[in-house]
């Protein structure tokens, strides 16, 4: 689908810089209000280090976090995950996929009336636990679900 990306670039009139700014850890370009990209967390290779980078010292398991994901994902390229936190004053939801090469998947911060709810599609390398970590008023809560990734029988 490179075709669509070219069209976007034409629309924006921008030349594509060759240098990759991945992991620059700087305030993200063009939005001084955006949180800095959590380079340490996203480069952590084990879930424990990812959690540390989020400032999590101990997350309480909570049934107030509803983590919806398939029991069996038909493939690991896009696994639909929907998380609702009913914990009052939820400030953020972070998602960890513990068997992925880089377990910290994404971070969502809510303000100005956003519901503590997010729905996305993740990449999963293999059967793994998907963990939702909620930060509410500086206290951490978590819910986890094992998602099986289908092993194909017919060439993938």
């Amino acid at each position: 689908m490179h075709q669509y990306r070219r069209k976007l670039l034409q629309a924006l009139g921008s030349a594509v810089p060759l240098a990759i700014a991945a992991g620059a850890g700087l305030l993200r370009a063009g939005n001084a209000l955006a949180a800095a990209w959590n380079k340490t967390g996203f480069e952590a290779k084990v879930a424990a280090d990812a959690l540390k980078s989020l400032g999590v010292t101990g997350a309480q398991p909570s049934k107030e976090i509803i983590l919806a994901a398939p029991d069996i994902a038909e493939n690991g390229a896009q696994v639909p995950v929907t998380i609702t936190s009913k914990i009052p004053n939820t400030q953020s939801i972070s998602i960890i996929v513990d068997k992925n090469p880089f377990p910290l998947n994404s971070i969502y911060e809510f303000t100005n009336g956003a519901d503590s709810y997010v729905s996305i599609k993740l990449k999963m390398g293999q059967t793994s636990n998907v963990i939702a970590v909620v930060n509410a008023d500086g206290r951490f809560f978590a819910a986890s679900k094992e998602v099986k990734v289908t092993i194909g029988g017919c060439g993938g």
Partner: protein
Amino acid sequence: MADPMKIRARMEGDAADVKVLMSHPMETGQRKNEKGELVPVHFIQSVIATHNGKTVLDVQWSQAVARNPFLGFRVKGAKAGDKVTVSWTDTKGDKGSIDTTVAAA
């Protein structure tokens, strides 16, 4: 010209339910192309959603978010006719943005 993002915002109860699809390769840096060369890392790192101009959602993504990434979120207290904008920035500094008006339930 094809619009590279799709957005739908509709009232559900007292919240606006918003769904966005962004067209982006979300390269992990592990994929090999036809010639067997590794395709460099290239993914959306940051997504900001606003409601009537105020930031409601601040997102940090890694390369492990699916290609052509989808994002669903809800805004409490929104009304039909309100404006919702979703903007992204990727690891190359490229940007995309789309806005829509919240439809009635």
